């Protein structure tokens, strides 16, 4: 419904809400954080600030068909850490975070089952494992179940509010600000502790099916997770880690849907046009079919580049029972994939499922990009905690791990807030942010500027061609990265020309601005790591080998005085003994 849009900044009402714990992003981690907070202290005021509607927001909007990490009987949290470490080529990973997460993992998954999530079990009641660590579920209602629990526990939910900035008290975070996408108000949440759990950043790169027709958002990850959570911290000088370890995955081609469902769940091997089993043929020395994730992600792209494409997961051996089960799995996670197959009239026992790589994402639930956090999940900004995909250092979290993260971050936040008294509201800071937020909407009819869609398209092609997108088979080099930086700077300067025609457009405008923030930091990370450690996720064509001197974390921080991004390193610490490269 067309709302009466404000003509002037003073027409925009401001609402200030006080709370104890503010959770920015009511997704998987966010809901678990809220539930844990209310469990620890039912009298705590817990507020969720959500851009969409928590019942179906975030990565699990359509559901999930599996929980990718759940420690089976006979295995330990250390075993999980070892496996996770090997999956990212031996790390470096934050083993302290990984271990504490693994120790809280099973409890989080069992909570979900108690709340009504169907976990597939055999006759003896054991969970059905499809790989070493992942169990099958019928998770079409996964998000509603979590959201309802959060509401039932008494969390206050503010839906349709896009977060745009942290509320700062000097160096400390005391809440967040944003605007109502439906009601057009400016919101200020004052909180003793803040957890940012907005998921990862999608749409930094152009997805290869994005063009003038209806398939701009054929991405594996939720395209409405744009990295705002990262951006609001970056702007305040928070330290980020490992952004160069982008998440690129093998995906069904064109549709860009999950493939692990098939490749792991139904033992369908990756093949090329000649029917060769690629992983065995070319990557046996790295583990073959059990090679680290980035090898599996990159392999199809290498086949295409070498002229041996298309590439497939070989489903021709599946029985009709298995096909039905496979499709049921997809219906739980990405139902439209079944529609996609139907729209091609494809019988996957005759024509195997075609695969390709995806556009790169920054997502700390699969790789380890995100905020640098301490063991309590607090970022380098006091009062700001990160949970789920927004937190960095610990890859392979997935649904179960992000849930556990939510709990851990809350425990940290609750401990922290015991010492906090909120300062007076800094009205100047609020006014400044309010102006920044609403300016694109208040341009007036004569304004000659740039639409959010135009700027987004420019940024996405820039990143794709210069910062290692799909069209470049993920490859980049120093000169291209410098080019990218130069043009990103121009785009950031051109933000002053952005205009928005309604509140939805205003949200799109800020999504572009936030993405530019993350893209800039990402490119700095890619520049710093002058080696190729995780081919596909991070491929430097000018430094194709691994450099042992870079066996450490690459960090970044925006200097609040100069505004420049500084990059540096932190050392890796092995906690769980064993061969880093073996699970």
């Amino acid at each position: 419904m067309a709302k009466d849009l404000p003509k002037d900044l003073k027409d925009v009402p401001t609402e200030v809400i006080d709370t104890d714990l503010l959770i920015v992003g009511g997704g998987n981690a966010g809901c678990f954080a809220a539930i844990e907070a209310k469990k620890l202290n039912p009298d705590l005021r817990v507020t969720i600030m959500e851009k969409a509607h928590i019942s179906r927001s975030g990565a699990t909007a359509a559901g999930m068909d599996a929980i990718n990490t759940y420690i089976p009987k006979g295995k330990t949290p250390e075993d999980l850490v070892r496996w996770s470490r090997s999956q990212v080529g031996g790390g470096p990973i934050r083993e302290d975070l990984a271990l504490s997460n693994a120790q809280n993992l099973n409890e989080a998954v069992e909570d979900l089952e108690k709340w009504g999530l169907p976990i597939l079990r055999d006759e003896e009641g054991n969970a059905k494992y499809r790989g070493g660590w992942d169990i099958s579920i019928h998770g079409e209602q996964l998000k509603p179940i979590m959201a309802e629990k959060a509401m039932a526990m008494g969390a206050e939910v503010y839906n349709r509010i896009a977060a745009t900035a942290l509320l700062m008290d000097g160096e400390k975070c005391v809440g967040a600000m944003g605007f109502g996408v439906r009601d057009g108000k400016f919101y200020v949440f004052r909180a003793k502790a803040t957890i940012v759990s907005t998921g990862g950043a999608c749409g930094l790169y152009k997805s290869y099916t994005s063009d003038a027709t209806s398939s701009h958002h054929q991405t594996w990850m939720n395209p409405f997770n744009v990295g705002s959570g990262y951006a609001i911290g970056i702007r305040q000088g928070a330290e980020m880690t490992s952004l160069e370890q982008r998440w690129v995955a093998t995906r069904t081609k064109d549709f860009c849907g999950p493939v692990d469902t098939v490749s792991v769940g139904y033992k369908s091997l990756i093949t090329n046009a000649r029917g060769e089993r690629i992983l065995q043929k070319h990557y046996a020395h790295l583990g073959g079919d059990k090679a680290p994730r980035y090898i599996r992600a990159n392999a199809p792209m290498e086949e295409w580049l070498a002229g041996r494409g298309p590439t497939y997961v070989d489903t021709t051996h599946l029985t009709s029972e298995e096909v039905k089960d496979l499709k049921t799995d997809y219906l739980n996670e990405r139902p439209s994939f079944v529609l996609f197959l139907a729209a091609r009239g494809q019988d996957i026992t005759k024509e195997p499922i075609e695969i390709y790589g995806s556009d790169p994402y920054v997502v700390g639930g699969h790789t380890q990009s995100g905020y640098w956090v301490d063991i309590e999940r607090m970022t380098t900004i006091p009062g700001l905690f990160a949970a789920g995909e927004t937190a960095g250092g610990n890859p392979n979290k997935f649904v179960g791990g992000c849930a556990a993260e939510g709990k851990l971050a809350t425990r940290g936040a609750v401990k922290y807030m015991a010492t906090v008294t909120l300062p007076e509201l800094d009205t100047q800071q609020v006014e400044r942010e309010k102006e920044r937020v609403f300016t694109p909407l208040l341009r007036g009819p004569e304004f000659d500027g740039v639409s959010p869609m135009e700027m987004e398209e420019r940024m996405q092609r820039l990143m794709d061609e210069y910062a290692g997108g799909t069209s470049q088979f993920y490859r980049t080099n120093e000169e291209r990265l410098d080019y990218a930086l130069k043009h990103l700077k121009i785009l950031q300067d051109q933000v002053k020309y952005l205009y928005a025609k309604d509140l939805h457009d205003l949200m799109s405008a800020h999504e572009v601005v936030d993405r530019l923030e993350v893209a800039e930091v990402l490119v700095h990370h890619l520049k710093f790591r002058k080696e190729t450690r995780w081919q596909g996720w991070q491929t430097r064509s000018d430094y194709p080998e691994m450099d042992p001197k870079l066996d450490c974390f690459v960090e970044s921080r925006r200097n609040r005085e100069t505004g420049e991004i500084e990059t540096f390193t932190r050392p890796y610490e092995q906690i769980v003994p064993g061969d880093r490269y073996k699970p």
Partner: protein
Amino acid sequence: MVWDLGERLARTLDLEALVQNLARAKGVTRCEINGDLWSEDSLTSLKDDLSAGHIDRILWVGRFSPDRMRILADELHTAGLNPFLHHWLDLEEQGVLLDGTDRVIMNRKALSLLEMALARTRLLEPLEPLEVPATDAMLIIGAGVAGIHTAASLAELGKRVYLVEKASGVGGKVALLSRFYPRLCDPHCGLQHALDKLEASPLVEFHTLATVKSLDGSPGNFEARIEQRPRYVNERHCNGCGECVAVCPVEVPSAPEAPQELLPQAAAWQKITALLQPGRKAIHPAYPMAFPRAYVIDREHCPAGCRECEKACPAQAIKLDQTSEEKVLRVGAVLVTTGWDPYPLGRVAEFGYGHHPRMISNLEMEKLLGAEVSGPSSPGFSLQDLNAVGFIQCVGSRDERHQKYCSSVCCSATLKQALAFKEQAPAATCYVFFMDLRATGFNEDLYRRARDLGVIFIRERPTEVKVDTEGGNLSIRVNDPILGRPILVDLDLLVLAGGMAPAAGTPELGQVLNLPQNQYGFFESHHQCHPEDGQRTGIYVGGCAREPMNVSRAIESAHLAAMKALKFLEGRVLIDPTYPLVDKTRCDQCKRCVEECPFGSFGFDEKGFPTPDLARCRQCGICMGVCPLGVISLRHHTIKQEAVQVEAINTAFMGEGEPVILAFLCENDAYLAARSAVHLGLPVPPNVIFIKVPCAGAVNNALVADALSFGIDGVLIAGCQDDQCHYVRGSQLVKKRRGDLGEKLRTMMIEPERVRFESLGIRQSQKYVRLLQTHIEDLKAMGPNPFKI
């Protein structure tokens, strides 16, 4: 606990095996066949188990009548078992003992039914009745004969009553009548006696010159805001001495000037009109009855600055500067007795009412008849001056162009008027022109007496009244059916017997009270078994506000309503604990429940979530049926409780080739028809398993989706006929929802005809059997449910 009286079940089913199967089910700690259920030992054993915590709910299997159920529930209540933790399963009524059906199938069916019952029993919850504090006052809108007599009865019972009347005095239309039939007595007699009692009672308050502006709150706790228009006279001080009238300089003209075309009859015009519209001063007694005693001023007629009455009043009762005031009344229930108004006869163009002084309405005739009693001291007109008076019946009534209905009293009223007239002018001739004479019941006597007095009855409706503009006479041309030829009748006075129309202000009052009107403009009523009841709980309509009726019926009707209202006048309202609950964590405020509740029972809480008014709610479950997310459930009859039953059905119990039907039967009519069908030994197909529901409208589409998705071949929803639904529109709503679902099924390549809605009356057992047979045939032709996967 299985109670197999006469071992009927054991004869057909492998009862022992079924019971053993059940005993192994999850949560079952005790399972037995008990032939001696009513013995001390048996009950004691149950009570012991309850106290020890071995069992906390009971599934009873057998034929238990309602009183038996109550006895067992009460007995076990003493041992601490909440009466809502029982589930009663009658296998027989589900048709497991039907002749000639395969034993294996019957056993499978019985097992399904037992598992269904068990599934529900697991989900039962203990419930406590709710008591909401309430007030004990009744609001009666309209202080006419029905309102006044009912107020007197209520006051006798110790209830407080507020009578709100828009006129300056009480009495309504009955106060305008000269006589009542059948005894031809004075209506003011009964009214005055009732008013004396009311005036003396501390429990009764009159508010005249008042109208109801808004009604908020809920049954038991209504808050009515009334607007009290200014009387300009202090009610407590004025004693009706009348000294003000003498000094009032304003004479509100009675007779308007005679219209041009009637100038030759100006004299007649003057006299009759003077009687029909007596002149009066600007200050005058209350009207139609001088009760309250205080006078009233028609301030619009006062000359500027005139304060004569104020100076003259010995009691200083005049308040010329009074303004409207708002009052708030807290009441438990509302009775609407706003009566009727005469149909505007001017609209019946063929007669020309209003253009001739000698053509009057039946209500106006009352004034003429009562003139020597209540009229001016020298009227200048006497009934004895009349030689021929005619009455035309059904003017504007039973007429497509005007009022389609019969007002039921006009014939008896005319007969009464003819008798009264003949009493005063025995020599005059009386004609009654009619279509049908509807003096029903004992009022036939009036007709005989009129005939005996020589009143002439002509069974034909005149279509034309001729007016002699010179002499001022009327004549009627009519075809006499007995003589077989047209006759011309000259008349001195013609009375048009018009009917009753809804009282002026009915639509506005309807808005305020949210009371719908029927197609004739009267307040809606159930009409059959609950004539006092409409769709607004706690608001009742009695008397002519509901339907044209005579005085004694109006009094009875209002009393019936008052009796039903008593439950809201007890100082507390008892709420059945089976009311609807909204799960606010999943509700997204789409407001469909609010829209579809036939009783307007939903309000909103401070966050905008729909909240049922428990005193208003009639627990029909239509909200539960319509909610797209299934977040509303009636307690003790929840969607989940039904869903687990649906899931427990063994969709293959009939074996290969035979379809399985799940029926949702509304407990008001359809269920009883189905139960009778088995009782009467009709050939009920064994393919059906039914679940009882409070109303067909309470069946949520998600349950139908469940049934189909689990592989049940056909779904039947049976309820009352559209216009007879006990909850007004449950059946209509099901049809609409079935349409939506049918569309979806079609796109899913499932035959929409698998899901059917049928109307079943309480004794339509034969129809039940036939429609099942048809459904089964059709399902066989369609093949098994494609979702039998």
